[in-house]
């Protein structure tokens, strides 16, 4: 710091710090504003609870069974959405994660089976999972190289990889599902401890680590900066190319973990495992407060977003809504979730739009 070294003429030191009364008030509002996806989730749950009581005298909330179900349901979309959160904050998008997840599921199934022939089953399981995550990293690396070195727009680069990973996954799987024969692996996918599924525990730990990376490390900080103004980030000396590369590998590895857990849960690897998750996972990120233009978003928000989507879809079945009306209801709820977000933003006192 060069302060002492400079001789300043005190005559110009006139702008006294103003009263800070506004500050604490604002930060509370802001904190609530950051929670808006969670608030919406709460509102949704309350609505479902009332509906359940009025409709058939049941309960939605006070059933640990319902919560287990929702949590397990949210695992796969959440894992993909967590990686997508990083990518979207940086201003990119990753369309390929669904089939990278499928690829990883197939690799996990095959390698767990093969490894099971040569080593104890628990090790075979770990080996299979690790390989699956590493294998997922390869298409992620290619994504990253295309986007960072060759300046391919993320939408197109990952759309290309969408096709490549899809083809590779189906070729590896031979067009069918690959059964896993490893009881430990099945246990990981379906067992629970103190009523909490292992799947959920693994996912929770992973999500915490990702939250730490995004909010507390340089990688996370630079991710926000790149999303807001990539030029500024570059001029500030951030290694954009390296960052983007790591980013897409990270996203692919999140999908890889998702694929490995899929294989564990369904005791089979399927190439199309992650195919339907694309829109849901991006929606989770956006409902969680991220902008597709980059620069904003958080893992905590994404968790809320993923839960919102899981709760609606589970809840509507629970409430026995007609299938075609479910499509409509999910659509309406997604829109409302963001309307509430908008309303809250207006009170949160941040930079205001014109």
């Amino acid at each position, binding site marked *: *710091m*060069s*302060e002492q*070294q*400079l*001789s*300043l*003429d005190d005559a*110009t*030191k*006139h*702008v*006294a*710090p*103003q009263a*800070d009364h*506004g*500050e604490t008030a*604002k*930060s509370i509002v802001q904190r609530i504003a950051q929670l808006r996806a969670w608030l919406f989730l709460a509102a949704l749950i309350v609505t479902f609870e009332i509906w359940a009581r009025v409709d058939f005298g049941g309960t939605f909330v006070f059933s640990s069974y319902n919560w287990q179900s929702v949590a397990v349901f949210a695992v796969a979309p959440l894992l993909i959405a967590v990686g997508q959160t990083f990518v979207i904050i940086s201003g990119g998008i990753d369309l390929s994660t669904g089939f990278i997840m499928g690829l990883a599921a197939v690799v996990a199934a095959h390698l767990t089976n093969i490894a099971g022939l040569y080593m104890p089953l628990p090790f075979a399981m770990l080996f299979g999972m690790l390989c699956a995550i590493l294998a997922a990293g390869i298409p992620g690396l290619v994504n990253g190289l295309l986007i960072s070195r060759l300046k391919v727009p993320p939408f197109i680069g990952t759309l290309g990889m969408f096709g490549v990973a899809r083809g590779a996954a189906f070729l590896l799987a031979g067009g069918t599902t690959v059964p896993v024969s490893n009881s430990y692996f099945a246990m990981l996918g379906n067992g629970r401890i103190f009523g909490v599924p292992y799947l959920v525990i693994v996912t929770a730990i992973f999500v915490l680590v990702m939250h*730490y990376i995004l909010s*507390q*490390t*340089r990688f996370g*900080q*630079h991710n*926000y*900066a790149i*999303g*807001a*103004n990539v*030029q*500024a*980030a*570059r*001029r*500030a*000396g*951030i*290694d954009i190319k390296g960052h983007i590369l790591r980013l897409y590998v990270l996203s692919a590895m999140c999908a890889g973990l998702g694929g490995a857990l899929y294989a564990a849960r369904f005791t089979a690897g399927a190439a199309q495992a992650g195919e339907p998750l694309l829109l849901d996972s991006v929606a989770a990120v956006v409902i969680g407060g991220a902008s597709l233009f980059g*620069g*904003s978003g958080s893992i905590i928000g994404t968790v809320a977003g993923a839960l919102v989507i899981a709760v609606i879809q589970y809840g509507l079945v629970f409430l026995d809504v007609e299938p075609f009306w479910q499509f409509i209801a999910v659509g309406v709820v997604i829109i409302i979730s963001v309307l509430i977000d908008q309303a809250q933003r207006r009170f949160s006192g*941040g*930079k205001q739009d014109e």
Partner: protein
Amino acid sequence: MNSQTPLLEVRNLSRHFGAVRALDDCSMVVRPGEVVALAGDNGAGKTTMIKAISGVYPPTSGEILIEGKPVTFSSPQEARALGIETIYQDLALADNLTIGANIFLGREPMRKAFGFLPVIDRKTMSKAAAETMALLDFHVKRLDAPVSNFSGGQRQAVAIGRAVYWNAKILIMDEPTAALGVPEQRKVISLIKSLKAQGRGVIFISHNLQDIFAVSDRIVVLRRGIVAGERNIADTNHDEVVKLMIGG
């Protein structure tokens, strides 16, 4: 002029954008403790020159020497690593980050949480931000607000603060005072003087001749991409400089 090795030497630098020759065969030097003004009309190539020096644009041809050694920057990072800090005309702030985060962008301080977990040290950042801004006579409350919330001049001050904080060997300023209030302008001028006293080199771009004459040792005038002339401030006056600019 003295005979020490120049801090910075630019030799026959050119930079073309397609058919546009933004900069054509330009040379200049900056010696320790020297403030060199870069002047010229709009579109003369001033910004292009300093972007080439700070690693933003690779030059089409020509050489850059730092303390006598030829360098080629493939990124602004490499220029910063050699002690060149730049304030850009278009500011280049990450609008969604705080003042502190902008000052430390790319060099965030870390601390250990729970004694082992490395996390970004936001306290240090906001403390340094407050101090740096105060140094420039900006006393900002709302240190946790993103810089998009601030006024034009306040944002300019953040950009200046960042360059100052890192204590550069060579400081490049592209119209730093343009958006500043009168007292802040004076502050920046006095800051440049004290940097000079410390033996640093400064390149100062401005359209304000008064400021240029108040602070510089030498002035390099660009006109449509070429060096139209170079004068010691002591040996010239406003009129001559304007004539050089417009090629009258």
